[in-house]
């Protein structure tokens, strides 16, 4: 089956100056993400995952190489691809409804309806007029996802989106995300340190090496949804990925 390439990370390199000279964070990184594909990237902490995501989403310029989206060089962030981060960025001074309306053009006639629909989609119906500080951590994440989806982005960039939540809430949000993605197919790039999360969600898991980051291994996850991370296939995959990360487990 032929899948159109959505994102092409092409020979990207990035370094930062430090006291002890230049620190190469990413070196000649090259991979493609297909249209509608869900790709998870895992790697040891401090390997430059967030730097990579900032480059792909257009917030940071690479030193060498480039990022192509639909074959066009991506130079700046835009609403075609929305970034969701661990800290979250729902505006605390706007209500949920106002946050959802934020990215929608004023002249769009159905913007109010869209905002209401997406609030409902993520289960925030009835909380539209609440301020973020009146919501729980999980609800805040839902608001952030809704705000991203309402502008109909083609790509979601997720950088440790659920890491600040407790384990139970994280799992719930993962299921929620899968439910939403079944309704509207987006291309998703997820960065995570949680291997089980990657296996649970992604079509493909890329393992990054230690600095400077390169693709060390790639695993296709062919298990059908809904997946059980405790299944033997998923566990075998988990062990294999962890081994790439330098963790050997005795089961």
């Amino acid at each position, binding site marked *: 089956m032929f899948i159109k390439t959505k994102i092409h990370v092409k020979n990207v390199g990035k370094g930062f100056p430090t006291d002890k000279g230049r620190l190469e964070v990413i070196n000649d990184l090259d991979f493609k993400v297909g249209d509608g594909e869900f790709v998870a990237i895992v790697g040891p902490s401090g390997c430059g995952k967030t730097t990579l995501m900032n480059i792909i989403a257009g917030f940071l310029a690479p030193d060498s190489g480039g990022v192509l989206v639909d074959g066009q060089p991506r130079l700046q962030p835009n609403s075609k691809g*929305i970034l969701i981060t661990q800290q*979250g960025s729902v505006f605390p*001074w*706007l209500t949920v409804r106002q946050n959802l309306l934020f*990215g929608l053009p004023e002249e769009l006639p159905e913007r109010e309806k869209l905002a209401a629909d997406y609030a409902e989609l993520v289960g925030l119906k009835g909380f539209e007029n609440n301020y973020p500080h009146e919501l729980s951590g999980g609800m805040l994440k839902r608001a952030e996802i809704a705000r991203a989806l309402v*502008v109909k982005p083609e790509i979601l960039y997720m950088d440790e989106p659920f890491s600040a939540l407790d384990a139970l809430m994280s799992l719930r949000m993962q299921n929620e995300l899968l439910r939403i993605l079944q309704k509207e197919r987006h291309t998703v790039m997820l960065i995570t340190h949680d291997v089980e999360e990657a296996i649970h969600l992604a079509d493909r898991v890329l393992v990054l090496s230690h600095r400077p980051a390169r693709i060390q291994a790639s695993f296709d996850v062919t298990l059908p949804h809904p997946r059980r991370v405790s299944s033997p296939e998923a566990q075998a995959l988990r062990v294999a990925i962890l081994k790439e990360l330098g963790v050997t487990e005795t089961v």
Partner: protein
Amino acid sequence: MKAVKNSLPSLVVLAVVVALWWLTVVLTKSVIFPTPWQVVTGTLELARDGILWEHIGASLFRVGAGFGIAVLFAIPLGLWMGWVRGAFVTLNPVFQILRPISPIAWIPLAILWFGVGNASPIYLIFIASVFPMIVQTTVGVHSIEKRYLRAAENFGVPRRKLFMQVVFPATLPQIITGMRIGLGVAWLVVVAAEMIALRSGLGYMIIDSRNAGNRYDLVVAGMIIIGLIGLLLDGLMRLLEGMKVVRWRYVH
């Protein structure tokens, strides 16, 4: 009930201070320094004549005018300096030099420029309150968390919207803090300004009471009224902190 309980210790302290004051005046047999009761009767006398209200009104008018102009000036300027780096680099050093100059030092120039009418104290109040508000607003813009600016950038909204829905509301809590500080110093300065060559206001009332027959009961009354009105003004500014759009800053 809880409010009563919380303010109980400070009320006790106040009562002790008043009692000590009274006791000291009685024990030293002072003929000039008033007892608390003399202050109360003096105040009532002024209030009955209506003079007290005129003085309070005059002072509040000057503060309102000077502070109001300062707000209109400082908030746009502070936002601009916070957002545009060039404006900050150019103007900040000037304001940093002007800021530590006590408003009292401006009195001779104010009289020279504006005469001895209302314009002088209004100018002094403006000078006193404008700098803290500029500084707070600028700091407010500078301290907007990057994640919010990034999100706004990500959605690619027009500049006007970015300003109205991100920059301004994100800065608003700091603006309100600046206004609280600004109004505080405005009130501080009006009294000092009115001590010079004006025929009305609480500052004038204090100086006049002393000069016209050593009415120290009215001097002390003026001081206490200034304190109480200052407290009231701060209370009003604190109400702004309760607004829904800035509540996020204070809850955690």
